[in-house]
């Protein structure tokens, strides 16, 4: 096993984003025939600020969750960082490179995995596609074989890589896909909803794999997901984005503190009754004291509301604001 240090020298600021903005110009028209015909001659354009002046830094080896509802600007940001989109303004650096220049040295050290798309040869066993990647990334045969077998072992997909990809289930395909995207041992991983559509077991498997990869190779991971379980399992830090703007950037644990106005008191009373109270943060100690004074309490816990609820609340507040 090679050490993590060999792959990721601990340099600060692997990802550096400063005032990054992407504006799309999209054609716009009313529904109906008249409007359709009119748009043939005169197009109406609307500017959409998909990403609006965002800034953040990610250190080497960090796993950061990128959260936001559909259309928040997550994928647009990932695409700018992987060199697929030119920013309208602002600045993005990854591993010291400007992604949009698409320099080989950069592309060789990163990977982009998109949960809903696959890039393996459909009719052939994945091993053949892996071989193609070996050539494209110009990996020495010996290294390639070692990495490939290591990753195949980690995900336990030894028998899957020999079947034509089209015969694999969605979850199996995703596992094989992920291995294909990591053969060159990238130091930066952009994972765009890698667990989308997978069953719970498969999600857990993939999650454990990402964690293991991060640990082994010291890779930096930026992950978007709609499954909070992914984020809770993998990311200490989250960036919450909505309407292209960053609403929160910090420890996952602090998210509730900053956005949730309530905490939940769960108590088990002597008569066997369970109570659950949602109490404003400021009144927690008061409420607890009152509960203890007025009832015989066997067990008591005070918790932040589930992270899903907090996130939902964040977006709801933003929408009404």
């Amino acid at each position, binding site marked *: 096993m090679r050490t993590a240090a060999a792959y990721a020298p601990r340099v600060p600021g692997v990802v550096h984003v400063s005032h990054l903005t992407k504006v799309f110009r999209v054609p716009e028209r009313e529904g109906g025939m008249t409007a359709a015909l009119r748009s043939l001659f005169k197009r109406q354009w609307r500017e959409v600020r998909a990403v609006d002046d965002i800034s953040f830094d990610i250190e080497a080896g960090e796993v950061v969750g990128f959260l936001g509802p559909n259309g928040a600007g997550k994928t647009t940001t990932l695409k700018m960082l992987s060199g697929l989109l030119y920013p309208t303004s602002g600045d993005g650096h990854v591993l010291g490179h400007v992604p949009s220049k698409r320099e080989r040295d950069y592309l060789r050290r990163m990977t982009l995995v998109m949960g809903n798309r696959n890039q393996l040869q459909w009719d052939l066993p994945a091993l053949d596609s892996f071989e193609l990647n070996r050539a*494209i990334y110009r990996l020495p045969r010996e290294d390639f074989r070692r990495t490939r077998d290591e990753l195949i072992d980690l995900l336990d997909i030894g028998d899957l890589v020999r079947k034509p990809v089209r015969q694999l289930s969605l979850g199996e395909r995703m596992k094989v896909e992920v291995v294909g995207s990591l053969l060159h041992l990238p130091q930066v991983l952009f994972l765009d909803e890698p667990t989308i559509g997978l069953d719970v077991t498969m999600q857990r498997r993939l999650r454990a794999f990402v964690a293991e990869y991060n640990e082994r190779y010291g890779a930096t991971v930026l992950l978007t997901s709609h499954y909070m379980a992914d984020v809770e399992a993998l990311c200490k830090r989250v960036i919450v984005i909505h309407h292209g703007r960053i609403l929160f950037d910090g420890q996952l644990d602090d998210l509730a503190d900053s956005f949730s106005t309530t905490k939940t008191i769960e108590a088990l009373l002597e008569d066997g009754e369970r109570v659950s109270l949602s109490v404003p943060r400021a009144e927690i100690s008061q409420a607890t004291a009152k509960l203890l004074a007025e009832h015989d309490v066997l067990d008591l816990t005070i918790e932040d509301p589930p992270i899903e609820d907090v996130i939902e609340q964040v977006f709801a507040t933003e929408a009404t604001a």
Partner: protein
Amino acid sequence: MRPVQLALLYLRLNVMNEVQYRANFFIAAFQSLLSVGVGLAVLALVYSHTTTLNGWTESELLVIVGVQILLSGVIHATIQPNMERLVDEVRDGKLDFALTKPEDAQLLISLRELRLWQTVDVISGAIVVGVGIARLHNSIGVGHAFGFLALLLLGALLLYCFWLILATGSFWVVNMWFLADLFEGVYQTGRWPIGIYPGWLRYSMTYLVPIGFAVTVPAQALTNRLHWTTVVVAVCFGGALTAFTRWFWQFGLRRYSGASA
């Protein structure tokens, strides 16, 4: 040579892929036979009324028909499937994968597809060219043969450039389904020597849709009617078009925004 290395790699993958669909071979062979048959029948029909067409005898024209069929094999086997995949991937956003590879994107998107069975046309085209030459009764020197092959390659390059320019258009006009039909229609005109067409059409078939350079010029090399100035013009035009195509591709790439997920 990196391009050759990559081409061989994709060739291997595609061969493995295509041999799974053997039935396609028979379909392609049948199509090829049909197109050769139609080509010869039309030729016979025309020459039953005349002995030369724009100075070309029937045997000489056979060479043109052969080159046209041969090149259509090259187009259908390699150029067209790659360009159609490009257009598709621009629409559904899958081009992202090609663009995040540490390899020249133009090279990658040009080499990925190969329809093995379509190469039947290359063979039948070559046979028709061979028959045409045999009937000419004048010996072909090594120089002519090499000139022919070089010009054929140049012709394929020109057609590739033309296709790539059109396919790059999909960065702006997302739906380019009409591409293949459009080209196919125009390409059929290449069965006749470019000289028979009126001036404006001749020029557009030479410089706009480079069928004239691709089909007629190589055939001229085999029928002793090639002038050195034509070669110089063809080579210069090939160089300029390649450079322009490269520039236009990169310009289009900047426009690419991917199907936003």
